[in-house]
Structures are given as structure tokens and as C-alpha cells.
């Protein structure tokens, strides 16, 4: 297991992160359910990168700071996090909510960012694309919708539910609501400023995403015309889990060129 746990205080927020591997820095920004465990794709990326997996403020083992009110607060926080760790030309890989955070960071400041990999990111709305309402779905339905191949959902549903896991899930859900309840999982002002992103961008999406429909990928590509768009077939909302090998190959090829 090449990953070690770390803790650092940034903006008054005790922040937990895992770090492992060697190479250029890569920061993985997790989605709404956090990053409670090291997943195979992280291990694989750690063979080529210095991988950092922070728990965002309000998620996982990080604090819930008083100042955390909206997605912009998270963007400024993560820019301070990059400064604090003195990361240079970091590859920012953001999944879902994390992809939204990556976009909000990059429109503000890319001085420490080398490139962005946006994995079915939230953050923008697309005409006629109806995201799932994860605040109204039961936990089981949410897990089922995350995946195209239901065996991944079955695995997650079969995992034992500990009191600690319930506490973490409620904490993560609370922060997700705080950041994304309204407007739902997007920032209507964001498209105005996407042109400010001056680093290479890759957009990755599962063709069968039942959380954020793939139509949003095309809208994002329209707004970021120079971005590379990869759509994985037979894949749901988490390509890094369902198509881990292809996903990691794409990140390496894209970020190391």
C-alpha cells in the first residue's frame, strides 16, 4: 500500500489527505460520497504520479469549517491547499462534485495547475439534461444509478454498514447539500468565465451515466472547445471505477504528453 495518511491545516481547516506514488503531482478531487478508501485506480495512478487525495472541507476526516458556504469557498480553499503544499503544474483530476471544484479553481487561478481531467463533472447545466435527484433517491437507488455494470453496485451494497460509515455518509451528504442544493449541482455563472481556463482539459464521461447524463459532456465540450472529450461505452458515473484501466491510461497519456 503506497498511500500514507497526512493532515495539514489550511484556512483554519484541519484537512486530511492521502498521498502515495512518485512522479509529477496529481490531485484527485472526490465526488459527493467522498474518498473513504484507496481505490485501485489511485494505486495505478500512483505508479506514474505523486497522487494526493484530500478530503474536501466538510467531507471525510477533514473539518467542517464555519466559512464553508458554497462551491466558491471550496475553490479558494483548494487553491490555498496547492500553495501550501507548493505543488507545481499539478494534474487536477476531479470526479463529479470534485470536477466542479476543479473548474471553479481553474477559472480563478491556474498558476499551480498543469492540466485538468474532469470526470463526469457537475458544475454546469445542459438543456434538456435532467440529472438524478440524489437528495430524494434512497441510498440503494443512488448506488445502483452510479454504475452501468450492476456488479459494482452489488459489491458496494454488500459491504457491511458500520456506525462510522453512517456518520461519514451523513457528514458528506450534509456538505454536498450545502454546496449543491440550489442551484442544483451547478453554478449558473460558471459558463461566463470558463474561457479563463488556460491549461489543457480532458473531459471523461460514461455513455450510460444515470447521475449526470452524457448530454452535459457535450455542453461542456461546447463551452470548452479546445478540451479533449472521451466517452466510455458501457460505463456509468464513475469511469475511474468501472473502466479503471482505460481511465488511467487516458490520464497518463493526456497528462504526460
Amino acid at each position, binding site marked *: 500500500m503506497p498511500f500514507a495518511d497526512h493532515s495539514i491545516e489550511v484556512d483554519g481547516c484541519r484537512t486530511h489527505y492521502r498521498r502515495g506514488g512518485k512522479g509529477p503531482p496529481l490531485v484527485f478531487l472526490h465526488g459527493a460520497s467522498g474518498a473513504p478508501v484507496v481505490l485501485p485506480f489511485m494505486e495505478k495512478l500512483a505508479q506514474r504520479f505523486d497522487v494526493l487525495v484530500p478530503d474536501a472541507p466538510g467531507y471525510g476526516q477533514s473539518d467542517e469549517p464555519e466559512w464553508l458556504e458554497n462551491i466558491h469557498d471550496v475553490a479558494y480553499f483548494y487553491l490555498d491547499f496547492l500553495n501550501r503544499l507548493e505543488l507545481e503544474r499539478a494534474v487536477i483530476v476531479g470526479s463529479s462534485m470534485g470536477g466542479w471544484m476543479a473548474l471553479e479553481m481553474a477559472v480563478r487561478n491556474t498558476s499551480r495547475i498543469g492540466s485538468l481531467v474532469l470526470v463526469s463533472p457537475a458544475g454546469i447545466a445542459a438543456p434538456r439534461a435532467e440529472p438524478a435527484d440524489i*437528495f*430524494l*433517491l*434512497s441510498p440503494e437507488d443512488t448506488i445502483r444509478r452510479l454504475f452501468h455494470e450492476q456488479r459494482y453496485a452489488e459489491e458496494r451494497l454488500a459491504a457491511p454498514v458500520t456506525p462510522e460509515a*453512517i*456518520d461519514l455518509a*451523513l*457528514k458528506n*451528504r*450534509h456538505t*454536498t*447539500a*450545502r454546496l449543491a*442544493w*440550489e442551484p*442544483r449541482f451547478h453554478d449558473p455563472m460558471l459558463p461566463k468565465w470558463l474561457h479563463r481556463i488556460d491549461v489543457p482539459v480532458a473531459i471523461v464521461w460514461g455513455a450510460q451515466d444515470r447521475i449526470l447524463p452524457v448530454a452535459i459532456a457535450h455542453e461542456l465540450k461546447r463551452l470548452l472547445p479546445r478540451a479533449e472529450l472521451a466517452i466510455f461505452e458501457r460505463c456509468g458515473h464513475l469511469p475511474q471505477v468501472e473502466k479503471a484501466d482505460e481511465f488511467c491510461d487516458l490520464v497518463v497519456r493526456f497528462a504526460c504528453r
Partner: protein
Amino acid sequence: MQIVLFHLMPYADLDLAAGRKNGTVWVTLPNRNFDPEKGHKLYNRYLDELEYGEALGFDVVAVNEHHQTAYGLMPSPIVTASALARRTKRVKIAILGSALPLRAHPMMVAEEHAMIDVISGGRLISGFVRGIGAEYHTFGVNPTFSHDRFHEAHDLIVRAWTEPGPFSFQGHHYKLQYVNLWPRPYQKPHPPIWIPSQGSKETIDWASHPERRYTYLQTFSPVKVVQRYLKQYRDTCAGYGYGCEDRQLGWAVPVYVGDSDASARAEAKAHFEAFRNVYVRMPIEMLLPPGYTSRESLKNVMKAKAQMFGDVTIEQAIELGLFVCGSAETVTRAFEGYWRDMRFGNLLVMCQFGTLPAELTRANMERFARGVMPRLKALE
């Protein structure tokens, strides 16, 4: 004791099977299930029932606010309270309550309540609530800011009612350069404020605070829960160093009075069970969105889920004190017993519930008003 006739104004013509099939009549039940012609008849029937409450001698008639649901057809209690303000002469009118955090701006609530208070010549009782969890889904208001918005909206409203304007209010959620309320409320310093609640320590601590001493209403809960929270309110007052007055406590409960215990149960059964098992029902994700309650409370509800979210029969509901039903004598004795134990100064009776039709509602109101109310009013 002060007796309040409380109405939810449900869509009583609901296709119950459709409500059952959808799992809830809140948020997602398609509004094609609402027939405006039936709605027209229902609104007028319900308003007539509340007006009849004045004739029957109730002290207060009460309306409330719920959104996008067959459970209650009053997205704006302002509309119904306004109609009552003109059609009644003596009875007090309670709005229980306006859902402050859901409003785009609380100044509207300050203004509308002040209008009704002035029109009615000081007969308004103002209730403030946060709105139930489902309404954070339908209104898009972020539930994690619900408490903050409630408290700030309350502060703005009370200041607008009581402080000479114009003044500026710069809150975190609401900002106004000019607060200068026209009309000012009729009552001095302002209409009484009642706080309906399903029970929470935070609400009790806040409502009972010596600066506020607001009337706390425990709504539609098993009687053991009512006892626990009313006692907690009294204890909290004692902790603040003052004695709780009975008028600071209230209990809202559906009631059915029949000619006998058996006929009461027979007449109420289908309608009460529709209320409890169709109109009230919703999934936990809808009831308790993140931040609406503390995470500890949420976990407690998750543990009690089977009991809270399962069906309840009328017999179980009577046993739990969730519903008070029987002959006038039975109902009177039940309330006298509860009163001796809890000393609540306000009893809010819901004489219509679920699908209870007009004739039974009127008969229920009459039997309650004639056979139960006089003895309860005398309690003090």
C-alpha cells in the same frame, strides 16, 4: 384553556390509490390528481367550517402553510386567514405558521401578517415555522441554511413590527437599506407568536427564552412525546429562572367525537387511517433533507424508521394518543386527564382530517363544541 379549531384543508377528494402508489402525496404526486372544480368546492367548504367554528364558540380558528401536496391546500395561509379576517368578527385567527426560511424575503411575512392584524382589529396570532423537510425539495431553499434563515427572518420581522422605521437591516441572508413597515401591526407590541414544532431541543431552548416566551405547540405526536416536550419546555423555563405559564404550551391533535365510542371509531376509521397512512406519509429522504435537523436527530429517526413509517390503525393511534376519539364523555375525560398531567393552556383540535366528509366534520365539530369544549374551557 383556550380552544383552537385547526384546519389543514387537505385535498379530501384525492384518489387514495394514486397516493399510495406514488408512495407519498408530497413533492412528486403529479398535480393532474388535483381537480380545480373539486378544489373550488373544498376551499369553500373548509372556509365555511372555520367560520362555523366562530359560531360554535371556539376561541381561535387556525390555518397553516404547506406546499405542493395533497396533505394541505394552503400554500399561502395568508389567503385563507385574510378571507377569515373579513368573514369573522370575534374569533382570533392563527397562522400556524408562516414558513419563514422558504420565503424569498421575510419582509413580505411582516407586511402580510401586519395587514391581517390591522384588518381584523388585532385578532391575529402569528405562527412561525421552518416548513417541513419536503418543502425544501419543492422550494429549492438550501436546508443546511434553514435554521440560520429562520432566526434571521424572525429577528427582522419582530424588529420591523416593533422598532420605529426607517432603519437598515444588514443580515447574512437578508439585507435591506430601508425597513419601514406600513402598516404597523394593530396589537402592541406585536401579535402573539406561536411556534408549532415536532419537538426539538433547539426550538424549545429558543422559544422559551425569557426574551421571547413564545407559545410552543407540539403537533401531531404520540401523547408520550407531547408530554416529554411540554415538560422539557417547562424545565427549560425553570432553568432560565422563570415559571412557565400554561398559555406558553399547546398541543395540536386530530379529534373525533361521536355519539358513542363505537360509533366514533366506526365513523372516523377510514378517514383517519387515510390521513395517517396516505396523506402524512413520505420517504425519509423527503422528510429530513440534510441539515434540516441535526445529524444526531436524523440518526434517531433512522432507528425509529419502522415505527414512524409503517401503517398505523385507528385503534393503535388512539392507544398512542395520536388521535383522540370517542363519545363526548370519553374525549372530555381524556383531555382532562392529559391537561392535569401537562397543563397546556391551548388545545388545538383538528376536527377535519384526511378524507373526512363535510357532514361528519360538522357533526364532529358540533359534538365537540357542545359536549366537550365547555368543560375544557373551564380548566385552569
